[in-house]
């Protein structure tokens, strides 16, 4: 019974919502909105569960004199302070975020906003370190990814096209060096000549490539974003939504029941 009842509820509500999409007539027409309203009401109450868990977790740490207990004390004090402050401002001004409220002026503007912005700003550092670590030309795919990332990054900022010849020159010179080293290491004359020729081509390519990209870099970056990028993304989206539909059907039919006890 413990499992059957939730499964029946899942099946009925899932089925009803699908049917409701195709029937504008009442009572089906407004079913989606009604279910949404119910969900909002129920999820509002679940926040109490969360608060209970949070406070209990930290209370336990304080009680067992865990090494991180001081942080837990700070958390509980802050939690109570912010809650009471918000209620006080809410009662006084009708809304804790009213322009005149001290909650908005001091807590929100001077603590909450900078703290959130700081966390978000960490991304700038993390993107740099992740890109540095991950973008290695390990194979053909990785190289393509690397080149297109570089082109888009430079193509989307002002004056990127001025810097791009510089990077192209360095890259192609490096490639030429690799070819030369490769040529020196080879024994057969034919292979040696081939690698020297490739090195030479890389060096010569610097000039036309630089001129072309200086002119067309933003357009190329846009093309990469709008054509290959979007195409791949749409494919991913279709797959993801099909997967979601299959998953939803599994849930409605009661095959997938991980979320149940």
């Amino acid at each position, binding site marked *: 019974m413990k499992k059957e009842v939730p499964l029946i509820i899942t099946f009925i509500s899932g089925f009803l919502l*699908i049917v409701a*999409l*195709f*029937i*504008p*007539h*009442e009572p089906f*027409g*407004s079913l989606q909105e009604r279910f949404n309203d119910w*969900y909002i009401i129920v*999820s509002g109450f*679940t*926040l*109490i*569960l*969360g*608060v209970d*868990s*949070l406070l*209990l*977790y930290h209370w*336990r740490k304080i009680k067992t004199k865990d090494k*991180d207990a001081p942080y837990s004390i700070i958390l509980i004090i802050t939690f109570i302070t912010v809650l009471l402050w918000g209620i006080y401002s809410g009662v006084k001004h009708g809304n804790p975020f009213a322009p005149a409220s001290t909650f908005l002026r001091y807590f929100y503007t001077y603590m909450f906003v900078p*703290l*959130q912005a700081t*966390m*978000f700003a*960490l*991304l700038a550092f*993390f*993107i740099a*370190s*992740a*890109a540095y*670590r*991950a*973008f290695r030309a390990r194979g053909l795919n990785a190289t393509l990814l690397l080149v297109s990332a570089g082109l888009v990054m430079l193509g989307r900022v002002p004056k990127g096209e001025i810097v791009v010849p510089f990077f192209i020159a360095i890259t192609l010179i490096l490639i030429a060096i690799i070819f030369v080293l490769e040529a020196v290491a080879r024994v057969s004359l034919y292979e040696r000549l081939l690698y020297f020729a490739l090195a030479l081509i890389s060096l010569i390519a610097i000039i036309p490539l630089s001129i072309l990209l200086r002119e067309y870099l933003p357009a190329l970056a846009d093309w990469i974003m709008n054509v290959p990028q979007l195409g791949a*993304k749409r494919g*991913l*989206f*279709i*797959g*993801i939504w*099909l*997967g*979601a*539909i*299959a*998953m*939803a*059907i*599994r*849930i409605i*039919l009661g*095959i*997938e029941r*991980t*979320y*149940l*006890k």
Partner: protein
Amino acid sequence: MLFLYFIFLLSPPGNVKARDVPNDAGGKIEVTWKLSPDDSLLDFYIIFRQTQTEAGWSTPETLMIVKRGLSKITDTDCKDGVKYRYIVRAVKGEEWVDSSPSNIAISSAQWFHKKRASALILLIIIVGLLLFFIQKARKGEELFIRKITGLDAIDEAVGRSTEMGKPLLFTLGLGTIADIPTIAGLSILKRVSKKAAEYETDLIVPCFDPVVYVAAQETVKEGYMEAGRPDLYKEGNVFFLSYDQFGYAAGVDGIMVREKPGAIFLQGYFYAESLILAETGNSIGAIQISGTTAVTQLPFFIAATDYTLIGEEMYAASAYLTKDPLFLATIKGEDWVKILLIAVIVLGIALETIAYFLKIPLLHFLKQFFTII
């Protein structure tokens, strides 16, 4: 005097038409009219409504006042089955002129949304295919699923973490229980918790959403139970952290730095915090397995973590991990739907291209069929 009067004589709005709004729950009539030729001189239009009673048409009631230039309104206050007609009055200062009354319209509710027929047909095909393969699986047919390295790596990650004597960390991202990626994440959590119980390793699960927190708690308990070690389950290891995106990110980062988990699982729906979590995880040297259907966050995960479940691979997780034939059947059904969709897309592209070059409007039928409102 006569001359002045002539100048200010306004032309009425013409061709007032009323019709029931299609594909709705009733109670609505759409009224359209042709703008008065003097539209640019007008102040506004007044729309009057008359109801038919036994004694004939009622006195006109003011329904709405709209700006000049508008030629369409929707009357949202109709009673189904009642006969209405509408008059549009053009007003300029003291002057006004009425249109002739519209045709009679009756609002009604529809039992089928005609514009969504294509969605219904697709739905029937998709569900039909899925049920077909489920049925086949019930009869015991063997089904093959390709290798998913990210999922194979789970056992290895748990094992390595145990060897190092470090706990495991699992985050379900910012999704609510209504998000399908979260449910997929839960099925992976179950596997991880089972393994954690077998290896006697601690599993920490900080949660963002309170409902997900409850579900995660149950899932982990169940995992420990399945492994036969319910005694190892620690109540305080699955907990609610914060309902604020970056508060949550800061909290999880803090746990990573303090507890130094040996393996980190990022499975669910993520937003901008994805890289903040993944990079911190990388900096403490943990082996990381990520998975999300948030396409924008996938590049970050691929760059910063060791294994990534890309999009639908996540949805296949429970099928892959349990090898349950019913699960596998739905994946097989999905593949067939994909083939079907590719065929329709190719056909659509061909039809639209031909229609564009040969200017045959008839060939747009497929596009029109799939245009849903």
